[in-house]
């Protein structure tokens, strides 16, 4: 039994028990689920197991290797941290959705075949949308619908790709696929949507800031990193990914600079961090793939930490708009401190987690001679410190004092943030345990004099740029606004087109009806002329006339019959 039970199923089945538990038992059980799943993960033997025969296909529900394990470990840790962070929430829907969602993501990284992957892939979409809807506001409901449409769409494209791929290659095994033919291209596209490739990205910035305070923390961990895992499994060394990834690192940061909703700023920087991982997959060397796995691991932690600190601000103040916040370090000192740890980690300061993982990818890019990509990654590294490392803590906790005075975040939130902050620093100071679980043997030393000095130069001069721009009033102020992004296409442009077509069709229909009505009126006039009260055919005829008619008819009949 123990070797055929996917750890993901423990969380999914366990989440179904949650509605039958009350109060502290419910929340206690919720904390227990990731622990049980983690335990089961440790018990699994390397290799494939849990085979199921269905419609003549063999599904491998559990495939354990280094790549699936590193993602499974961090997914369990993220589920546990998110559950602690959500301890105060009295909403069974969110608890069930959160655990089932985490379970689906864990199930997916253990999937040994594409059909199993597809099932869990769709399940992540269906469960996670409730974390958005649970906000119970009109805007969240609509954003959730858009999110669901995109996510399920990704699943449908994935299924189409799998079917075509299966017919061409005869295999549904989820191994290296490579971009060759229509089936793999569709699978690649499906992964790309979930990974928020440029122009396919906007569901992320649209939906994540609309979710509940605790829901966003769950969301930030799983969906996109599942896609990174899937790309690393199916398409390592695909050169196109280098260009896609480099674009992803660079363009969202421009939006991050001018965005006012601080959780949306984090969603843009999440997109930018995914870019680093995608570049690592595209380069496809052992160092770069290790870098991708390591960066996904540390990224999930510091991104959750940043979303938790902004969630705490939203929870206490009721707003997350940079234009309305400021000076909160006075009332939320602990949250401020944890946020700064997250900011230092995402910025890859030496001794913080981002430093030991991102440097692997950048070194791999430089070592492979990709000088242009390397330059873009360096630009994005400076930029991420600028908008995530400085802007987030600065506008929420410092800047001008907004006069808002609130209580410090609840204890469970502080505990979750404290644990995550500890892990961020621990990984940065002592990366060996993380390096030990990466897919390939690690031959990389992050703390060299060159690495440390050059990284400090890059970051401190970014800070200097921020300070100078602020001091001279050049830095763009936070404004109450929205910025157009690719979601404009399906929120404004397409509805307008559809509206125009609908109006056009309506006009056409009206025209057609007018013409038809005119003809109908003419017809009725003719009928009226003959059949109306004074019409020829409506006159009363004498009975003899009728008899004469019948006689003529019968005569005609007889005549034709005998002829």
């Amino acid at each position, binding site marked *: 039994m123990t070797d055929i039970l996917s750890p993901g199923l423990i969380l999914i089945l366990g989440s179904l028990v949650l509605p039958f538990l009350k109060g502290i038992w419910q929340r206690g059980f919720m904390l227990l689920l990731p622990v049980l799943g983690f335990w089961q993960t440790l018990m699994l033997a390397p290799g494939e197991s849990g085979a199921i025969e269905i419609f003549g296909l063999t599904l491998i529900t559990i495939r354990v290797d280094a790549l699936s394990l590193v993602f499974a470990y961090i997914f369990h840790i993220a589920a546990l941290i998110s559950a602690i962070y959500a301890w105060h929430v009295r909403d069974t829907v969110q608890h069930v959705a959160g655990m089932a969602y985490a379970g689906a993501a864990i199930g997916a990284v253990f999937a040994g075949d594409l059909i199993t992957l597809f099932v869990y892939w769709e399940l992540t979409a269906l469960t996670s949308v409730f974390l958005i809807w649970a906000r119970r506001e009109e805007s969240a409901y609509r954003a959730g619908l858009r999110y669901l449409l995109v996510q399920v769409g990704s699943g449908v494209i994935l299924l189409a790709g799998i079917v075509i791929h299966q017919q061409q290659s005869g295999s549904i095994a989820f191994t290296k696929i490579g971009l060759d033919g229509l089936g793999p291209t569709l699978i690649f596209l499906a992964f790309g949507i979930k990974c928020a490739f440029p122009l396919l990205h906007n569901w992320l910035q649209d939906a994540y800031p609309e979710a509940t305070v605790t829901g966003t923390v769950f969301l930030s961990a799983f969906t996109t990193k599942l896609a990174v895992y899937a790309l690393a499994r199916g398409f390592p060394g695909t050169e196109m990914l280098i260009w896609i990834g480099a674009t992803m690192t660079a363009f969202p940061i421009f*939006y991050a600079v*001018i965005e006012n909703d601080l959780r949306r700023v984090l969603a843009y920087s999440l997109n930018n961090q995914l870019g680093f991982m995608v570049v690592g997959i595209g380069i496809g060397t052992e160092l770069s793939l290790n870098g991708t796995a390591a960066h996904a691991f540390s990224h999930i932690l510091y991104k959750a930490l940043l979303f938790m600190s902004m969630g705490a601000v939203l929870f206490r103040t009721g707003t997350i708009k940079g234009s309305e916040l400021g000076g909160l370090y006075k*009332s939320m000192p602990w949250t401020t401190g944890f946020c700064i740890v997250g900011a230092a980690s995402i910025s890859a300061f030496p001794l913080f987690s981002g430093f030991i993982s991102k440097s692997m990818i950048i070194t791999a890019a*430089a070592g492979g001679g990709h000088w242009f990509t390397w330059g873009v990654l360096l630009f994005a590294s400076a930029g991420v410190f600028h908008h995530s490392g400085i802007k987030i803590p600065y506008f929420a906790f410092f800047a001008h004092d907004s006069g808002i005075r609130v209580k410090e975040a609840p204890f469970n939130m502080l505990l979750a943030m404290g644990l995550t902050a500890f892990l961020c620093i621990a990984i940065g100071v002592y990366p060996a345990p993380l390096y030990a679980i990466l897919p390939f043997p690690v031959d990389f030393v992050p703390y060299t004099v060159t690495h440390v*000095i050059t990284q400090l*130069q890059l970051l401190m*001069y970014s800070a200097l740029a921020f300070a*100078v721009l602020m001091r001279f009033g050049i830095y763009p102020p936070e404004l109450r606004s*929205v*910025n157009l992004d690719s979601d404009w296409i399906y929120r404004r442009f397409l509805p307008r087109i559809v509206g125009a077509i609908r109006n056009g069709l309506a006009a056409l229909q009206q025209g057609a009806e007018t013409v038809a009505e005119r003809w109908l009126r003419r017809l009725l006039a003719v009928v009226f002329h003959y059949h109306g009260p004074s019409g020829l055919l409506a006159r009363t005829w004498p009975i003899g006339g009728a008899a004469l008619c019948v006689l003529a008819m019968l005569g005609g009949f007889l005549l034709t019959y005998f002829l």
Partner: protein
Amino acid sequence: MDDPKKRYWLDEPNNVSKIYWTVCAVCAALFVADAFYHKHIHFGAEGWFGFYGIYGFVACVGLVLVAKLLRIILIRPEDYYDD
């Protein structure tokens, strides 16, 4: 919750200036640091004196200025999508 009238260290403009000048001093020190170690490089430009600092500064100023220009095109009122 604390007293809104309480003055903090950062509330003094002088102290904010101190932070500003500290950042400047650290940057100057890091610039000079390039003279004191052997830099392992992959590309020629990396070897230039103070390359990483200048690159970071120019990148960030460029980022902000371009974003500021983009905002002119992209900005919409907060209720833009609420019909």
